[in-house]
């Protein structure tokens, strides 16, 4: 076992009613930005869910270093359903720091989330997970609906967080992490 790893995944087979992904083995260390790639249906989102404890483990193990904190931005939109939550309150829930938000969204943190555009809401959701006080960040298609300036800002933030965090990212936007990804984890169909 890799003693310095934050997560060690060994022969993991995970899914819901039946296995969707695996068996797969890898470890995650601080300082890594790991791109998770694979065709549709290969189980990328299920793998992140399994790391966060939200999917069923059929075989194998996910070992975490004691005290490791994980945040997980799911691909699905926030379940707002007219909940009158503001952006500032959303960030406070995860303990995310609002400092560093780009100028185009900073003034909107006081607004209700259900009054933001799809792209603004997605950015806020990603930011709440990315900037939470955690060790491992799991991002599932973080650039969906986000304009190019927002994508560039996220890329810049992820790069800046590299020394202190481990970040796993699923993205069909292959250019998003070009040059800053330290490793690619490929899943078969």
């Amino acid at each position, binding site marked *: 076992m890799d003693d310095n790893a934050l997560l060690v995944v060994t022969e993991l087979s995970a899914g819901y009613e039946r296995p969707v992904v695996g068996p797969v083995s890898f470890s995650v260390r601080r300082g890594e930005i790991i791109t998770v790639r694979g065709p549709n249906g290969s189980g990328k989102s299920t793998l992140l869910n399994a790391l966060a404890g939200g999917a069923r483990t059929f075989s194998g193990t996910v070992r975490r270093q004691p005290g490791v904190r*994980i945040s997980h931005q799911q691909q699905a939109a926030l379940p707002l359903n007219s909940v009158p939550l503001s952006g500032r309150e959303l960030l406070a829930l995860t303990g995310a720091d609002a400092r560093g938000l780009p100028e*185009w969204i900073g003034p909107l943190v006081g607004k209700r989330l259900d009054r933001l555009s799809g792209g603004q809401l997605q950015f806020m959701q990603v930011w709440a997970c990315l900037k939470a006080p955690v060790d491992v960040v799991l991002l599932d298609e973080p650039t969906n609906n986000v304009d190019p300036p927002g994508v560039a800002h996220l890329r810049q933030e992820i790069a800046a967080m590299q020394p202190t965090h481990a970040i796993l990212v699923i993205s069909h936007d292959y250019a998003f992490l070009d040059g800053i990804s330290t490793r690619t984890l490929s899943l078969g169909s």
Partner: protein
Amino acid sequence: MNLSDILDPMFRWPLVTGVIFAALLPILGMYLRLREEWLAALALAQVAAAGSLGSAILGLPPQAGALACACTAAACKGWIAKTGNNGYALLMISGWAAAILMLANVPIAEHLGHALFDGQLYFTGVTHVAFGAAFLLVVAAVMPWLSRKLLLERMFPDFFRASGLSARRFHLIFDLLIAAGLALATASIGVMGAFGLVFVPSMIAYRIGPSWRGALWVATGISLLAYAAAFVLAFVTDQPFGPILVFVLAGFAVFGYVAQGVFRQTAPALPGR
């Protein structure tokens, strides 16, 4: 009755009892709505009413039976919730049927039954205030701690799972809080009055609240205003308090819809939409 009679010392306890529940119930309603479980509130209120009557028949304080029945129902909520709203609906009609049968067959239950279903706030006394004040202290101590957990679990359920924590514990605490609140409120302001204070102010606040914290203030403000108006109206017209409160709350709800429509027509669009 003359309006000046409202200042009579005998109406002070009812006034204070109502203020306590008018301040607390909409806050609990906000979190119930967050979990999309407002039907559970009506079911618990009906069960609490049946518990109150059963308690009175046995010679015990009504609040004891209301608390016991509502908390038992809340503790079994995990099992009930598996049936979705069907379970709550069954609980609601069963609670109502049990209460009406007790009312019809046991003379001692008749007076209390009318109070529970009419919402006769004016007959409440120091015991009701004492229970209400104790509940106020519990809510003031627990909700600031519980609020973030309930919101976080709703928005980012994986934060709990990923930390190896279970949200079930926090939900159970909230369920018991709701059950206790509705049981005590039902024994003071009646079934529909209590449900109205849970349901209507939070409904309006969800529509017009500027943020979660802002919506909590909006819900509490609407509730206290509606309560004050209903207290005076019911007193002056010599009508049962519960139905008057419900009518006033319904009026606020209609006003809320109209106000939101006006706001939407006049508000400038956000950039980027």
